[in-house]
């Protein structure tokens, strides 16, 4: 349960990071808050800031929201003993890690600028991925005496 709670909290933080970047990409607010080292505006205004016609941050919002919902649903008493939720979160986190790796490559080698918010998001999704692996490897809790009918697809 602790692992799933940790994942939910991490996903919540990641969701707001992605939400901020997405709203900025949509034109809300002024220049992005990035500190003196800069880089965020360069990344945000580069051609790679849009993926399949949508701001990259939008995929972050959707991804973190999916992880958050999965983590919260998996905390229901009926779902606590079901490892399928951990597999689902691990799958979502793996997708996020792969996408983040691609974006980090683009920042380092194509744009030559690093956005702190992107680094923050990369740390969060990597942490979720690690915790979701740990959640899958933990010993299974004792089964409830009541029969369960709900399953994760």
């Amino acid at each position, binding site marked *: 349960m602790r692992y799933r709670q940790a994942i939910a909290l991490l996903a*919540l933080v990641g969701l707001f990071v992605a939400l901020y970047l997405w709203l900025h990409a949509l034109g809300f607010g002024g220049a992005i808050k990035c500190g003196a080292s800069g880089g965020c*505006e360069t990344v945000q205004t580069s051609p790679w800031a849009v993926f399949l016609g949508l701001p990259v941050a939008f995929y972050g919002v959707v991804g973190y929201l999916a992880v958050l919902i999965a983590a919260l649903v998996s905390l229901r008493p009926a779902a606590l003993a079901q490892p399928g939720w951990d597999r689902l979160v691990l799958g979502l986190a793996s997708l996020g890690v792969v996408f983040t790796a691609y974006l980090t490559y683009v920042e380092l080698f194509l744009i030559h*600028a690093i956005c702190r918010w992107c680094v923050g998001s990369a740390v969060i999704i990597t942490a979720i991925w690690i915790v979701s692996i740990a959640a899958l490897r933990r010993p299974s809790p004792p089964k409830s005496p009541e029969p369960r009918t709900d399953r994760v697809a």
Partner: protein
Amino acid sequence: MNRFYVMVGVLAVVLGIGVFAMLKTGGASASDAAAGPPPTVVDDSFRGYTLGQENAPVEIVEYLDFECPVCATFATLQMPTITEQLITTGKARWRFRDYPLPIHKYSRFAAHAAQCAGAQGRYFQMQDQLFSHHQWAQTGKDPSSLFRDLAQASGVDLKAYDACMEAGRYAGRIEYSRQEGEQRVVDGTPTFFANGTKLFNGLRRLPNSDDFKSLVDSIIAHSPPKPAARPARR
């Protein structure tokens, strides 16, 4: 379990307020980087943008503050004549150095905007824009958006300009120029030097184009004739 959901709720509210506040005050960090004094002074060997020929007999160095109304008056009223009489004729070369005064809130920011435009070969166009639309210096409002418009009107690529301003790329250079002026006892703006000598110390008014013409002609008249050019050795 209930405590956990309370924690999630509180965290969501705190993060939501944080995002809202950042969107509401967007741009402040970028302003800080370009508008405030930098943590370090950078000598990047840059000694100011110049107008005129390299071999002009007189070099005038002007320490200016973009928010200073007198500098704006001088730039808009006197410089066109000075350019015509002294610079394009090859008599004088003009070097612009930044001397942002601490009493001016956006003076460093304006100097930085000019430097970021200069990085794209548009320093003088941006300087013209900043001085000819000088009402920004009287409103006290954050001029970030106006400066972007002025940069665009100067032919600057805004993506590169935004990145430059956000990073405060030339803040160290501007501070170096200011400290250089301090060492040369610049006590206000604009302050002028001709071939290294401070000008118009006792003058109680803003020098005009006639003052500069007399000065430059006098320096040239009293300069020793240049030796005849010798063929270059190989």
